[in-house]
């Protein structure tokens, strides 16, 4: 992205980015370590550390290698996709409140999966595709309702449309649950949003689409930055705004669908992460995207570790914790004297 494209017309990569990135990477490494060391069960940090050093007892080895390691990797993937998806959505809608969870994209994916489960599907691979189709549907529905393209639109209207859309899908989902008690149990635990009990197979199923989405993101980062200067400037620079938007929608659907298929709908990550990234690196979407790469996993892993410890020995769903962190950020954005437009 910005490194590859640093020909002479580019602004020089900011000093901030090169200073902040190592720090964030260090924090992320710490979060990964914490996620491996702490859990809700009995295997404490000391025993887990012994496993990492290569000489732990068999129980600790089992817990760390088959439970916590996949969970950590999945947390990284989920955080990465949600953070990048939020940054993309905010850039294309020029709206700091655009967030996959708030806008109903996650709800669309969750509803599609609920329907698929209700119809009898059970394979994890199918679930990913279904969730991505649902995310695409949710994306398009909310965007068309709130007419995302209008430049002078009130940013907040999009959130309202998303809230209405999510509430509608949630009630339709609970309608499905009324019919079928068998799927009800399966859906009920998935719909909250959590990283617990996910397997590496789930991650493997989403990796191809995740890679594809990141490639698309890398390709459209520059046109997106041009689009931030306005539609006509972007056209003048040789980009096609319509095509860029379509690609963004596809990338967001792939990312959110993948994350939702593994972890269930998790709101507010896509709001908080780009918010923090912009605060650290300024409004340029290319820098924001770079910072989302460590920040997204950092937030999800930190929230996940806390969610294991807060009510130990049981666990808090991850979605609950991100909502508790994210809602104050939402309020803070809205309370700012002038709503920032991107």
């Amino acid at each position: 992205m910005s490194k590859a494209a640093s020909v002479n017309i580019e602004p020089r990569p900011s000093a901030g980015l090169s200073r902040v990135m190592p720090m964030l990477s260090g924090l992320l490494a710490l979060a990964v370590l914490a996620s491996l060391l702490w859990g809700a069960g009995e295997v404490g940090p000391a025993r887990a550390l012994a496993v990492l050093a290569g000489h732990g007892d068999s129980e600790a080895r089992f817990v760390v290698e088959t439970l916590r390691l996949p969970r950590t990797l999945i947390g990284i993937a989920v955080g990465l996709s949600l953070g990048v998806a939020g940054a993309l959505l905010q850039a294309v809608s020029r709206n700091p409140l655009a967030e996959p969870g708030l806008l109903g994209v996650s709800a669309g994916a969750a509803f599609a999966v609920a329907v698929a489960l209700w119809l009898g599907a059970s394979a994890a691979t199918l679930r990913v595709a279904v969730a991505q189709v649902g995310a695409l549907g949710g994306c398009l529905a909310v965007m068309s309702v709130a007419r995302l393209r209008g430049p002078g639109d009130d940013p907040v209207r999009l959130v309202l449309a998303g809230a209405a859309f999510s509430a509608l899908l949630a009630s339709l989902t609970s309608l499905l649950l009324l019919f079928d008690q068998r799927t009800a149990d399966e859906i009920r635990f998935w719909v909250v949003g959590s990283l617990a009990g996910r397997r590496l197979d789930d991650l493997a199923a989403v990796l191809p689409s995740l890679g594809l989405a990141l490639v698309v993101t890398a390709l459209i980062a520059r046109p997106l930055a041009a689009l931030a200067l306005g539609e006509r400037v972007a056209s003048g620079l040789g980009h096609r705004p319509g095509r860029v938007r379509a690609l963004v929608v596809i990338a967001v659907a792939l990312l959110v669908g993948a994350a939702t298929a593994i972890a269930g709908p998790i709101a507010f990550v896509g709001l908080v992460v780009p918010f923090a990234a912009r605060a650290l690196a300024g409004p340029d979407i290319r820098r924001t995207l770079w910072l989302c790469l460590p920040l997204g996993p950092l937030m999800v892993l930190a929230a996940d570790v806390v969610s294991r410890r807060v009510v130990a020995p049981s666990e808090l769903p991850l979605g609950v914790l991100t909502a508790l962190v994210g809602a104050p950020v939402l309020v803070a954005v809205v309370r700012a004297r002038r709503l920032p437009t991107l």
Partner: protein
Amino acid sequence: MSETLMSEPLPMPARADAPRRVAPPPGYWRLAWGERHLLIERRALIVSLLLLGLLTASSLAYLCLGQQVLSPAGAWAALKGEGDPLAGFLVRELRFPRLLAAWLTGAAFALAGCLMQTLARNRLATPGIIGIDNGATAFAVASVVGLGVSLAPPAMALVGAATAAAVTFGVASGGDTRGYRFIVAGIGVGAVFGAVTQLLLARVDIDTANQAYPWTVGTLNARPGGAVAVLGIGLALGWPLAMALARPLSLMRFSDAVARGLGVGLRRRRAQILGLSVLLTALAVAVAGPVGMVGLIGPEIARSLSTSRGVPLTASALAGALVMVLADLTGRLLLAPIELPVGIVTAVVGGPWLLWILMRPTHRRVS
């Protein structure tokens, strides 16, 4: 204000015989007794009577239809305590109390919605959308799962609604209730309370979670008896209060400066209207759980039927009751013998409606 304007004495009409000589404005009827008179808007009266007629008809259908279909005459006889004892039990013990709860909750939700929409000058600012329902749900669920609080779920719902309202208003920088920021602050507060509800439900076993289920969707199935009576009293007091506030309300639809210039004590009126709206919502949630969509749909119907002269408070309440009765009837009949909670029916109807409002370019205006 220029000096010359102020110095001209305004020609004042003689007070004593003024009421008798003034002809009512077009579209109004004048009701006079002695020195006092009352202007009644013709359209508002007709709309209210129309809604009342529809409400009566749908209530009759509500009493007649179900697993056991009765004839209208049979339902009426059963209501009076004559005829078949089984039908009597069905109507008097099951259907009529539920119908009563539907009337009261629908009217309370819609009246509260109309008050808050007018106050915020925004059709979307209903108590359900700004998180009051979620707060009530979270507190009620906390009571059901036994969080060491001794209050019954309906009372806790009241406390929760008040808490959520206080937090939302506090967060949205004091008394400023206009614009979308207020609503998004409400959505944020609602999200936190929603998360708290899920947290509570995730910690308990499946049986307790099922017990709390009615409080999360909104249903008339589990109406607590005392709460219905309290709601009835609250509505009987709240409706005249709302009517008394109708005049300042209709002035407050304009800008603050205009309202203040016309003699509305804004700060006091705002507090009164907000308090009344939150109280009505809280009492209704204590009976039926979060069915807040009625607070959006009811005033919408009333407003589309009425002129824009006044604030259609009574029409909103009647339309809300009508929506609630029809929604619950639909929920009972649609998939019988499975009963759909009324909250799901109103959400499935109200969600697209809300989206449609958002799609229309004139979404900002209240009237």
